[in-house]
């Protein structure tokens, strides 16, 4: 295992020290491992709390700031944060208008946020929760834990963050979050495994000539494994299941081509070009585009495609100013 760390045990503590030193927009509650806005929201506005296991940076800590999140709860690598972290974040950011929890759909995340929300509710905070489950690689059936939340989370956090900044109430913000989540689909693939620092070895073995289609952002196995092909074929294998799952015709869309952490930008651009060609051929209107590392999986090489249907309100909120380490415009 080759990593720029001090020791597997210290990864989160050390990274939080670095985040605090690097990003003036945030302050860090080291005891509770929560990244908070340095300059909190005004009283009376809905606050957004997200979080999850570490290793997906800039998700979620890199999206704390004006126009997006109020706090991110930082779990151990690939391990959801605990209820008391979530409670601490929630009570700290509540401005009297309630708090929206944005939770990726994993059993651990859902349970911990559920318990954190219960504790916060006991203390009188109005909490609503949206669960993001955008990964079409997983069959959504009663025989599974349901679809995973992956890079589509970024779109939800951006759009609802802007709405909260404008003063949208909690019920409406939760409904908007659900609407964006319902309109968003993602599909990912990996060229290599990630290595969890505490595990010290790759989570899975992927032979030099194979790739995994439908990978999760924690190195969970995908739909299938097959011989490595080219960018055009990979684009097709990511775009087709997305288009098969939701109707993207007759709507503007937001497109995100996301790197898993170890994929160079030049490759993401190649993939982006192929994805755009496929979407054009399918008659999908791409109104907004992002390409880069937005929701990663440690040192995994690979990429995902996220597509979100976006009406005029969603586009307007997507375009609203945002000032975070991971996403910034108009400010």
């Amino acid at each position, binding site marked *: 295992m080759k990593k720029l760390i001090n020791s597997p045990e210290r990864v989160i503590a050390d990274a939080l020290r670095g985040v605090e030193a690097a990003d003036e927009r945030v302050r860090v509650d080291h005891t509770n491992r929560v990244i908070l806005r340095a300059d909190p929201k005004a009283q009376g506005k809905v606050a957004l709390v997200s979080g999850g296991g570490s290793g997906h940076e800039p998700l979620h800590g890199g999206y704390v700031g004006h126009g997006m999140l109020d706090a991110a709860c930082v779990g*151990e690598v690939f391990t959801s944060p605990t209820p008391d972290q979530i409670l601490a974040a929630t009570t700290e950011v509540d401005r009297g208008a309630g708090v929206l929890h944005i939770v990726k759909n994993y059993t651990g995340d859902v349970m911990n946020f559920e318990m954190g929300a219960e504790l916060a509710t006991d203390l009188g905070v109005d909490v609503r929760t949206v669960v993001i489950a955008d990964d079409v690689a997983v069959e959504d059936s009663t025989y*599974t834990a349901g679809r995973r939340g992956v890079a589509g989370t970024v779109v939800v956090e951006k759009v609802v963050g802007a709405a909260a900044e404008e003063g949208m109430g909690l019920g409406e913000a939760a409904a908007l979050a659900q609407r964006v989540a319902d309109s968003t689909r993602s599909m990912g693939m990996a060229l290599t495994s990630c290595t969890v620092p505490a595990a010290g070895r790759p989570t899975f073995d992927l032979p030099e000539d194979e790739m995994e289609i439908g990978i999760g952002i924690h190195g969970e*196995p995908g739909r299938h494994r097959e011989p490595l092909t080219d960018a055009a074929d990979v684009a097709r294998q990511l775009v087709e299941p997305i288009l098969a799952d939701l109707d993207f015709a007759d709507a503007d869309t937001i497109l995100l081509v996301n790197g898993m952490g170890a994929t160079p930008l030049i490759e993401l651009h190649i993939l982006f070009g192929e994805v755009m060609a496929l979407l054009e051929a399918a008659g999908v209107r791409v109104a907004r585009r992002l390409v880069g590392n937005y929701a990663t999986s440690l040192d995994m090489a690979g990429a995902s495609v996220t597509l979100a249907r976006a009406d005029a309100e969603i586009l307007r909120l997507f375009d609203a100013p945002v000032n975070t380490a991971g996403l910034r415009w108009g400010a």
Partner: protein
Amino acid sequence: MITTALVSAWIARFGEIIEDRADYLTKLDSPIGDADHGANMLRGMTAAVPAAENAPTIDAQLKAVGMAMLSKVGGTSGPLYGTLFLKAAMTLGQRAEVAPSEFAAALRTGADALAFRGKAEPGDKTMVDALAPAVAALESHVAEDFAAAAEAAHRAADEGRAATTDMVARKGRASYLGERSVGHTDPGATSATYLFQALAEVSR
């Protein structure tokens, strides 16, 4: 009678086994999970062992373990093990000694609460597959002799653990794999088996 000394010894021994087997648990969590179950349990038990040692009553010990799991582990196993111990603690009064049957009933209540929290049933390929038969065995043998009951519970857990290998996962991360989860033993069922291995060892 079950004493605070026995509970301390139990939790300490569980902590030792977890420390010893953390790498193995993480290895089990790699093909069908996200390679952290060993690290998760180790983080929890590192906090739980001294917490259990320093609590004056059995319910306080179990509560301390539950709080440690809940606040140090995260992930799926944190709230689940947390629920197990917290709910077990709630059924006992503030006492330094409890009858074996009360103790067994407390663990059954905890295990039920865990299954309820995880919405998991036996056969879903989770820790419930080890826990449910273990607490059932403990309860049904506790009238005889606690050491034998703990031994039976451990055997039942281990059989439940072994049976997860051939199951198709329907809960947790392994469920993403569907049929491809077959052939891998569930990490959570394995750590749950260690819990009863520890109980059997310290009860001898």
